């Protein structure tokens, strides 16, 4: 006897506890198995690219904060690098180190969120997430010390950072690094070898490197697929050519590797921060640039960084005015979502949530 079944279409999102914002996937299930996936975007579309065309080059920095709001420092950095390439200027070394340092702090914060929510979606009721937020809170406090805001930092400016770090920042950073070691070790102890986490994520949704490359996937997802591609290594910007770090690479290409790569990147970020503290020298933190920037007409620049989600790039075109003529944002979250079919089809409902968590999208950046 054969049992007659029929597929069931479910709209996961835009209001769902674990779609990382207002993301919607229309999924057709056969029982609990996923047959068809269709993502629907646009619920958080704010037209950032259009808004950028109507603001001057410095004002756009405030818009970049709101792209991937979990890593606004890195967004600032990407944009400022693009503008600097457009202007053909180079920030002073201290600014470069400050940028590197804050970007790495932000990367830790963003990866903590990614890891915390990844495990939350596995069903750990908030505990790893709270531990992650406990540490992230300290980072945000450091940001408040630096620039007066925690999430929407607007810390960097074309030509450097808005101001040098206050004096009390450095001892606070030292204390944070000390405490974070302990807290993060605790989190690793809770998660890294947990058998339940292992069987839930090992071997689930592997993305072969060829598929990842063809889908333009970048960042930790690409590295988890076995490709050791990191723009901080390949195209060092700011002070990344001065510091040493390793690139963690996955060998199983699965959800666990994506989780593991993020955990390891936090360690590497800590290494980079320590080196920055050692190497940073006194000096100016900002170039003397006019308040309103006017790059030469016809110039274009592609400024990219390795953001916490992947390759974040700003493609700026100038027409000689005070505002960018075109400001294209290459958002890693959106483009990483290209693999959503390879990631989800054939797996179960429970894996779907976890896989979505493992590529760590941020709707502010997907919809822009």
């Amino acid at each position, binding site marked *: 006897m054969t049992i007659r079944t029929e597929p069931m279409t479910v709209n996961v999102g835009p209001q769902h506890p674990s779609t990382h914002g207002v993301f919607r996937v229309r999924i057709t299930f056969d029982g609990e198995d996923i047959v068809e996936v269709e993502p629907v*975007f*646009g619920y958080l*579309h704010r*037209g950032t*690219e*259009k808004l950028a065309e109507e603001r001057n080059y410095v004002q756009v920095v405030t818009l970049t904060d709101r792209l991937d709001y979990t890593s606004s420092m890195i967004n600032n950095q990407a944009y400022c690098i693009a503008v600097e390439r457009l202007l053909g200027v180079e920030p002073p070394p201290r600014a470069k180190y400050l940028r590197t340092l804050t970007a790495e702090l932000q990367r830790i914060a963003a990866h903590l969120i990614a890891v915390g929510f990844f495990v939350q979606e596995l069903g750990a009721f908030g505990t790893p997430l709270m531990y992650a937020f406990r540490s992230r809170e300290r980072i945000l406090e450091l940001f408040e010390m630096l620039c007066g805001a925690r999430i929407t930092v607007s810390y960097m400016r074309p030509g450097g950072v808005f101001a040098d770090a206050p004096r009390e920042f450095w001892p606070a950073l030292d204390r944070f690094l000390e405490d974070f070691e302990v807290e993060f070790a605790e989190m690793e102890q809770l998660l890294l070898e947990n058998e339940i986490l292992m069987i839930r994520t090992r071997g689930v949704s592997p993305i072969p490197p060829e598929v990842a*490359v*063809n*889908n*333009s*996937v970048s960042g930790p997802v690409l590295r988890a697929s076995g*490709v050791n*591609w990191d723009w901080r*290594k*390949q*195209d*060092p910007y700011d002070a990344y050519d001065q510091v040493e770090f390793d690139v963690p690479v996955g060998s199983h290409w699965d959800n666990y590797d994506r989780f593991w790569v993020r955990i390891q990147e936090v360690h590497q970020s800590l290494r980079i921060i320590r080196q920055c503290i050692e190497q940073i020298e006194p000096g100016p933190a900002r170039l003397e640039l006019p308040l309103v920037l006017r790059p030469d007409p016809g110039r*274009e620049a*592609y400024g*990219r960084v390795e953001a916490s989600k992947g*390759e974040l*790039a700003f*493609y700026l*075109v100038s027409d000689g005015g005070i505002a960018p*003529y*075109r400001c*294209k944002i*290459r958002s890693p979250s*959106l*483009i990483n*979502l*290209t693999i959503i079919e390879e990631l989800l089809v054939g797996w179960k409902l429970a894996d779907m949530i976890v896989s979505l968590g493992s590529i760590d999208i941020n709707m502010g950046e997907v*919809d*822009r």
Partner: protein
Amino acid sequence: MAVREWAGQELSEALRRELPEAVEGFDETAAWVNPSQVGAAAIFLRDEPSLDFRFLNSITAIDYVEYFDVVYHLTSLKQQWCAVFKTRLYGRQDLSLPSVYQVWKGADYQEREIWDLMGVYFEGHPNMKRIMLWEGFEGHPLRKDFL
């Protein structure tokens, strides 16, 4: 070990060897490709081992009022080099380009986004519909004449 960026001339010469009709010219950073030949050029750029551009960074369209530029940023992870090629579409109505979806699947959402916001249609894309805005939205907001 910085990534090498191909000059426009270099790329256009490499392209011209295989696809002479595809290349329209070059500038400092990019090679200019004939709009109708984008598909062929894309396949060549990806599959030719001496180019090996298997990673598509981004596709961008720029509205210059009289014409649209579409910019492709490419990277070869194996050879560690980057290149840019551009194509120019004249006019404002019924613009279309061959899709590179079959070459680089990473172009999927970016092409849809360009269609949605800029109004450049990509022929051969299997799911060419609006991505950020809803179906039935009038106009393409990133165009310079959209207010």
